[in-house]
Structures are given as C-alpha cells and as structure tokens.
C-alpha cells in the first residue's frame, strides 16, 4: 500500500467516525459545542438540505438474505467550502438545520488546519456524551440481568 492510499484509508475511517457522531447529535448539542470552536468557514449549498427516506433492511433469520424492514426519515445536505472541498451529511430524522451544520463541519474537518481544533471542541465531546449515554443504558440493562443463584433462594 502506498503512503497516499494508507492516509486515504485512515481519513475515510476518521471521516466515517465523525459523520456518525454528528448524525447522532442534536442540532442544539452541536451548536453548543461550536461556541468553543474556531469559526466555521463560509459555505455554499450544493444540494439540500432535503428530507427523504431510506429503506432499512434486515436479514432473514438475522444472518440470511436481506429483506426490506421499513423506511426511516433521513435528511441530507451537501455543501462546498473554499475551492474543491465538499462536505456531506446524511442524518436520521427531519432536522434540516442539523444536516446543514453537519455537512459544513464535515467539510471543515477535511481541512487539516481546522481538524484538530474542531475534533477537540466539537467531535470528541459529542462522542464522549454519546458513549456516556450508551454506557448508562448498558448499566441499567446489566442491573436487570438475572442471577440464577439469587433466584434459587427466592420463595
């Protein structure tokens, strides 16, 4: 693998991650984090924001052939920043302002000079908050795990 391809793979993994984190955050959560971040670059709308549907698929038996489970709403947006950089967002739900914000952030995060500050001020705190919520749910679920040695002494 050439050095260029390696860094591209790395960038795709990093980009996938921040896009997933931004998609799970609310517009107000993102806006709150942006107060501590450097200003976002000016952008032009290339497409949207527009709301549509994605057909969610499952697999028969959980691991067999795909089937169409049902649709969900999704909002997408593409923005241009500077010359050649395009930012994309596909986010669940119908929040157009959030999709646009996420697209602008996606574009800005592709700029190596802005990335560290935006990761630190926006993406990582959002990721930490999401991980906290998931961990809390997991701990509540764990509290309802049956301990059969306890059940054995129940009357």
């Amino acid at each position: 693998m050439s050095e260029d391809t390696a860094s591209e793979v790395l960038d795709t993994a990093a980009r996938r991650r921040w896009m997933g984190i931004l998609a799970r955050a609310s517009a107000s959560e993102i806006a709150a984090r942006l107060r501590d971040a450097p200003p976002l670059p000016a952008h032009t709308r290339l497409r949207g924001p527009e709301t549509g549907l994605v057909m969610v698929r499952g697999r028969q038996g959980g691991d067999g052939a795909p089937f169409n489970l049902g649709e969900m709403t999704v909002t997408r947006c593409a923005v241009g920043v500077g010359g050649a950089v395009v930012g994309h967002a596909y986010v669940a739900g119908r929040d157009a302002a959030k999709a646009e914000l996420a697209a602008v952030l996606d574009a800005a995060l592709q700029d190596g000079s802005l990335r560290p500050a935006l990761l630190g001020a926006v993406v990582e705190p959002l990721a930490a908050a999401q991980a906290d919520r998931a961990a809390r749910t997991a701990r509540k679920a764990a509290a309802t795990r049956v301990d059969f040695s306890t059940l054995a002494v129940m009357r």
Partner: protein
Amino acid sequence: MAYVAVKGGERAIGNAHAWLDEARRGDPALPALSVRQIEEQMSLAVDRVMAEGACYDRPLAALAIKQARGDLIEAAFLLRAYRTTLPRFGASTPLDTGAMRVRRRVSATYKDLPGGQVLGPTFDYTHRLLDFALAADEDMPRPPMPEAQADSAVAPRVTGLLAQEGLMAAEPASDAEPGDLTREPLEIPADRPLRLQALARGDEGFLLGLGYSTQRGYGNAHPFVGELRMGEVAVEIAPPELGFAVEIGDIVVTECQMVNQFAGSRNEPPQFTRGYGLVFGQGERKAMAVALVDRALRARELGEEVGAPAQDEEFVLYHCDNVEATGFVEHLKLPHYVDFQSELEKLRAIRAAAATDARREAAE
C-alpha cells in the same frame, strides 16, 4: 340533483371536521398534550405506529397519534400517507442485529447463555394491578435507577450456538436485492424476504391471532423462543457520492428467533428451523407473532403439510395490512345508493314474480 347533493355534503363535511377537531382537543380547560409528551410517555403506541406505518420517525408517529385521537390504525394510515410525499434516497446496508446494544435479551431455551438473561424494561412479572398512584397528576419522586457493571462483550445469537453444533438449519448467505412491496404489487407466491416485509408492517392483532392459532393446532408448530432481543442498532447507508458507508443514527428494533422442530427430508437431517420476526421499536408481542407466522409460512418450502390459515400465504399476506383492510372494510359506509337501488329493484321483481306464480298455482 347530484350537484345539489354534493353541495349539501360539503357543508356537512366541513362541520363534521370542525366537530372532530373539537372532540380531538377534548376539554379545553385541560392542558393540551404535547407531541413530545406522547413521544416520551406513550412510547409503545409510538413504536406500534412506526411499525405498522412502516416508517421510523418518533416525532412524526407521535404527531399522528395526537391527530388521530389515539386511533393507532388511523395514525399508521397518516404516517403511510406522509411517506408518499418524500423521495427515497436509497436502502441501508442490512442491520447487524448481532451487534445490537441490548436493553432486553431473553432465551427460553438456555438458562445460562453467554451474555445472560437481561430482562430490560418489561411488563413481565408485574402483577397487572392498576396503580392508582399514577392517577395523581403530580410526578412521584422516584428512587435512582439501579445500575450494575456492564460487560462490554456482545451477546452471541442463540441460533448461532445451535448452528455450531449443526442442529440449526443455516440461513443461506445472500446479498440478493430483496423485492419491495411498496414499489411492486405483492404477488403470490411471495418469497421469504417479501413475506417478512409484509409481516413487519402487518397488524399486530391479526398476526397475534394467527400466531396463536398455530399454537392451538392450526398448523403443526412446536415453537420455543430461542431468543428475544430488543435494543439499539446502527443504521448505515453507502451513498454513491461518498463511496463509503456512513452511520445515519440508531434505531430501536425487536427481534425474535423462534426455534422449531423439523423432521428432516431426503436431503436434510432432522434439525431445528427458525421462524424469524424483526419489527421497528419495542414490540415483543408483534415480533413473536411474526416469528410464529413466518415459520408457518415456510411449511411448503420445508415439505410440510399445508392446510392451516397461518400457512396460507395468500390468506395471511393479503389480509395482514390494517391500512389496506381498513380501506376496503370502511369503504362500505360510503354512498352505494345506485348499487343498492338496483339490488332493491331486483329483489322487488323476484318477489313480485313469486307472488304472481303463487296466485296462479292457487287458482289452478
């Protein structure tokens, strides 16, 4: 004359809708329900409307419930109508329910299974006694939620454990493009992916009754709940302009793996087979019913005798959709004046002819 009738109908319809709106609001001295309150506090109704409306959007489903005065079939209808106004951006990559962040996961076949029995927020083991404390308008102070150390390991599927021993029929690996009954009319025979789509959006009550019938002897079912799980899964799409897959968010789904005996055939040894149910939201009763009916509908494929209603593909798939069923049943109340007039005239003519015959016979 028809013109006059339409004008009269217009005013009556307008006034009926005004009354509907007043009735929907109820006593104006009471605060109006907010959509957020419905979303949070009627969450299982929201889940059911998303499942039967075949559209995952919690705020929209809550709005539909408010507008429909709590009529959940009407709410599903509203959601289905809304979705037709939106463009389709594409399809997700198939959900990985094995990677679900489980809130509930139980098995009736293995007591000690890796990952454990996780009860989650269940009505099971409640005493079904009305709780009059909830009748008080004020929120009761609640003790903090118990929490316990969570282990990070993903809970393996029970069907996977059986498959390792060769006791569970494997699902053939496939990435075939599934049929979509929202795009093409459903035709019989339908393959299993189409059946699972129809069942996922089917009416919970209808499917529950059918599933129950398989247990009572209408169809040869000996089911076990191999596994029932509910929780969050990530939804991922791969838009062509990106060239890679991105996660657009998480949704809650309920999955049921029903384990059933299979006598074996010339080509296959006796083994277990699966009935599978996957539905939007927290919908355990529905997921179980879907899994029972899915297995019943596999009778022909597995070379079993077909005779019970739940095994009849045409009967099940053409009647499980409550929005379609509502349309055809409720259209009966719309004006059929001309049809009925012709029936009346026919009946009068038959009776008149019969009376003439009777008189003639009496005279002879």
